[in-house]
């Protein structure tokens, strides 16, 4: 048995993930009754079939390029009369084009769990979910290694905690695999388990995740599971951001190494990964990421609020037992921003601007005093006026 007979496990996983991504975009098989009457064993040679089916939006086809197209809905109606079935497939214009399942930020607007209607506790911070076709390993410096698979992933925020994991996709069926999340104590019940895990499962460690059916109609996504489980989302329009995984900044604080990267898709947010060097077994001042365990987040508190007119922002406080605490603030502002200010009741600090790929957004990051008070981040233009980011 030679090396050609096997690939490294990581490469095998990437191939499986990539195929899962493509097959996830497979259309529904045409019904048998819609096949051409060439099946009647006529002498006419088979001719190309005319399909009145939905056009898939923005797919990642193997080797056939990419194009963004809107979905046109077609609702065939069938009339059964005796032993004959007549199917009429008609074109039907949708007033709202179907949003892409992948990459759209979906905000929870309703549903039913355990027989009870889902209630959105804070309309200003609705639970959200995003499904990404693939993770692109960022261009890391020499010696650093991206361990993320090339398969579909999902991310969620419940208005308090956020997290995500890998996603298994089979046509219209999705199954979240594993979940990592922040562990902030919230003042209202978290929707993280409601969204992706059985209602009585714990955050800690792997959980048995449900298999869900996905369906997008217009700007609405419906996820249905067993026992009447159903979640309904609405698409949230956001401008484009850099490719997922783009490393914005890496740093080393007294409590550990951290890395800010772009969450990808249409969502202008950064994501912080903090690794505890002691758990990774690395004693050097600069550790390679492969030596660390990205899942060993030691995030103590995280907030992600969006007051009207303010930029999306996040503040995390990281700690390592027996060493200390630090708070890092980071987020995204319009590209024309001259400076960024962090303001709380006790502190005002200027944050550092960071270049992001593209010309629409800039990032900001900075270390601020540990502070549990509400905070605000202001983007200031060259004329010393606040910039409006919008939602």
């Amino acid at each position, binding site marked *: 048995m030679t090396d050609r007979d096997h690939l490294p496990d990581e490469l095998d996983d990437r191939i499986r993930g990539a195929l899962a991504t493509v097959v996830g975009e497979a259309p529904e098989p045409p019904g048998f009754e819609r096949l051409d*009457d060439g099946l009647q064993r006529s002498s006419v040679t088979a001719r190309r079939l005319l399909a009145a089916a939905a056009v898939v939006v923005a797919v*990642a086809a193997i080797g056939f390029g990419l194009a963004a197209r809107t979905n046109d809905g077609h609702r065939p109606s069938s009339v059964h009369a005796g032993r004959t079935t007549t199917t009429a497939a008609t074109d039907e214009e949708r007033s709202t084009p179907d949003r892409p399942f992948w990459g759209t930020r979906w905000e929870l607007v309703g549903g039913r769990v355990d027989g009870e209607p889902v209630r959105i506790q804070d309309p200003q911070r609705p639970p959200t979910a995003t499904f990404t076709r693939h993770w692109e390993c960022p261009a890391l410096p020499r010696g650093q290694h991206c361990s993320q698979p090339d398969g579909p992933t999902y991310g969620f925020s419940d208005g308090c905690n956020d997290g995500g994991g890998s996603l298994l996709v089979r046509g219209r069926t999705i199954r979240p695999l594993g979940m990592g999340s922040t562990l902030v104590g919230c003042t209202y019940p978290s929707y993280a388990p409601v969204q992706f895990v059985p209602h009585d499962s714990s955050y800690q460690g792997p959980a048995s995740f449900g298999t869900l059916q996905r369906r997008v109609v217009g700007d609405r996504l419906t996820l249905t599971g067993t026992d009447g489980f159903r979640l309904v989302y609405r698409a949230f329009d956001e401008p484009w951001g850099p490719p997922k995984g783009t490393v914005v900044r890496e740093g080393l604080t007294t409590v550990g190494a951290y890395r800010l990267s772009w969450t990808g898709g249409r969502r202008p947010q950064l994501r912080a990964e903090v690794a505890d060097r002691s758990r990774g077994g690395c004693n050097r001042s600069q550790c390679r990421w492969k030596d660390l365990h990205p899942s060993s987040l030691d995030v103590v508190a995280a907030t992600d609020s969006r007051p009207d007119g303010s930029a999306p922002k996040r503040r995390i406080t990281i700690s390592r037992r027996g060493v200390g605490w630090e708070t890092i603030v980071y987020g995204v502002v319009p590209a024309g921003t001259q400076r960024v200010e962090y303001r709380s009741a006790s502190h005002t600090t200027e944050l550092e601007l960071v270049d992001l790929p593209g010309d629409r957004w800039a990032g900001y990051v900075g270390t601020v005093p540990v502070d549990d008070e509400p905070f605000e981040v202001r983007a200031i233009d060259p004329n010393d006026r606040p910039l409006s980011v919008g939602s």
Partner: protein
Amino acid sequence: MASDRVMMADVDRAGSDDAATYEAHAARLVALATALAGPSSAEDVVSAAVVRAMASPSWPGVGDRGAYLTRAVVNEVRSHHRSALRREARERRAAGPDRTAPAEDPVPEVLAALAALPLRQRTVTFLTYWADLTPAAIADELGIGEGSVRKHLARARETLRRSLA
């Protein structure tokens, strides 16, 4: 792939097990066609392949109909790809830069590497990694020898290893 015309088809289902055969394999065939020809062509490819297979005089005597349909889809992808290349060349000549739809995302390197494989290697790779078939099962499915399957898979893996290293 979308049609602007109304299509109607009358099908007499009495006594036909073709419908049951099709329903049993449709999802798998569409997945295969999607992986080999892309989602936008998958439905056309499967429809044409199934019609061609079931309209064949030899169809009633076919034993393993699932494998027969798999081979039909692969063959249809091959001929579909040739005509698609000709059509795309015509469209590129006709379209100006303003009419070209911008790409939404860059093609991931893994998908690009898979796309660059010859059709047979791509098919074997798909059946190995997606359908989790053994070389012997793939050989039965495609109607080729097991040694050929192993050879195609080894070559595909070598190419992928080099391009994704």
